[in-house]
């Protein structure tokens, strides 16, 4: 294996190399940097990079920790101390996070190294990453297509081997859908499992932070690091965290999975239907029992989502007033002009209607 091949590795395959001292955390950062320089001009997954800070972290990394020396890409809605956190909005242009989000603190405690912030739909409102006020991110499999969203930067970075793994956030599909569109593994953890402290809020009754990775095992490794109770987050669950890797590698005998008939509707893309049928067959072959179930309220989910998400976003985005942080309109003639123009000039076309 040469250094050039390193970025293609998943986390679990990179770790033995680090632990046997065949490659140093500093070398990993350097080859990742070279990979990003090579391909990110076309993919545009990242909004900001800080290899200087990452290299410093790498010099003192303890590779025997659960994620020791592993660089992780971070969606630009999660606070990393001293780094920009724009939410891909002009209203947070120039803002630097004054502290680490709990998930970042936990990743660091597990030895991981944040090094870059990834593109997204503005304030996580969107599902293609086209609603970024900064730039368009391309799907690495086909540059004419979107990577999905809103965590499209993290999904594209992982798919293009520009990151060994990444963090995203999911309110109404923003990890799972870009993972699907970019061909990586994405997990929205159970609500309350992962702290949102230090994560810019969109719809607080739905938001969760979760991993985007190359493999299910890597997803489990990141979950082991970020899950758990946080006294600074009142909605976080005070429950023991299982070892997420414990269930890997087993067959699925005795597992019963429901397939909701409401999800297979007229107009379902035949390729999607074929992929689900293939998954059912595969799960069956592993011993799982697939049963037809009905979720009769499925048709109302979209309605509930749009009512709750818009109302909660309205409350959460009211904090952007041009006083304490972020963009502020020049020379307002009075207070109403200050608020009105700050938001008119700072918010993109999609977040405004959320009020």
């Amino acid at each position, binding site marked *: 294996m040469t250094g050039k091949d390193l970025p293609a590795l998943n986390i679990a395959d990179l770790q033995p190399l680090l632990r046997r001292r065949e490659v140093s955390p500093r070398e990993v950062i350097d080859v990742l940097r070279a990979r990003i320089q090579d391909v990110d001009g076309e993919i545009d997954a990242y909004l900001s990079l800080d290899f200087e800070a990452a290299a410093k972290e790498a010099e003192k990394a303890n590779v025997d920790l659960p994620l020791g020396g592993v660089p992780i890409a971070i969606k630009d809605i999660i606070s990393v101390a001293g780094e920009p956190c724009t939410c891909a909005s002009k209203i947070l242009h120039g803002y*630097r996070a*004054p502290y680490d989000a709990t998930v970042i603190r936990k990743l660091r405690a597990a030895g991981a190294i944040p090094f870059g912030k990834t593109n997204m739909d503005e304030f996580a409102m969107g599902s293609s990453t086209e609603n970024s006020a900064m730039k368009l991110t391309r799907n690495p499999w086909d540059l004419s297509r979107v990577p999905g969203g809103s965590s499209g930067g993290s999904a594209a970075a992982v798919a293009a081997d520009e990151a060994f793994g990444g963090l995203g956030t999911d309110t109404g599909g923003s990890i799972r859908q870009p993972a699907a569109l970019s061909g990586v593994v994405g997990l929205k953890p159970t609500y309350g499992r992962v702290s949102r402290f230090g994560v810019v809020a969109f719809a607080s009754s739905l938001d969760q932070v979760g991993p985007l990775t190359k493999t299910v095992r890597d997803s489990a490794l990141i979950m082991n690091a970020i899950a758990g109770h946080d006294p600074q987050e009142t909605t976080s669950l005070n429950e023991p965290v299982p070892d997420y890797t414990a269930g890997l590698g087993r067959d699925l005998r005795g597992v019963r999975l429901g397939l909701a008939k409401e999800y297979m509707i007229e107009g379902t893309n035949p390729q999607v239907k074929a992929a689900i049928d293939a998954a059912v067959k595969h799960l069956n072959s592993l011993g799982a029992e697939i049963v037809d179930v009905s979720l009769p309220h499925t048709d109302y989910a*979209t309605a*509930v989502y749009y*009512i709750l998400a818009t109302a909660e976003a309205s409350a959460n985005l009211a904090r952007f007033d041009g006083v304490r942080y972020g963009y502020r309109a020049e020379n307002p003639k009075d207070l109403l002009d200050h608020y009105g*123009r700050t*938001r*008119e000039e700072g918010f993109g076309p999609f977040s405004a209607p959320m009020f």
Partner: protein
Amino acid sequence: MAKTSDLDVAYIARLARLNLTDAETELFQKQLGDVLRYAEKLREVDVSHMEAAAHAVPIFNVFREDAPRDWFTAEQALSNAPHQANGLFIVTKVVE
């Protein structure tokens, strides 16, 4: 139930301190109308036998000790302020 046409988007925008162009007002009129139709759609569902839930998991009244802790300095709190002086946020004039 309010009709879409009853929605005064310009008034709502004033309350939310948002400046909207005429085109945006028209667009958001339609989008907010969609949300109202969603609310109307939910009336079809019989929830009389359901217990109301305010939270996805049963966590209630999370309190903490009212104790001081090390956190932001004033300097850090001001570090992202668009305008500041003498350790204070400068705000747009609110009194004559």
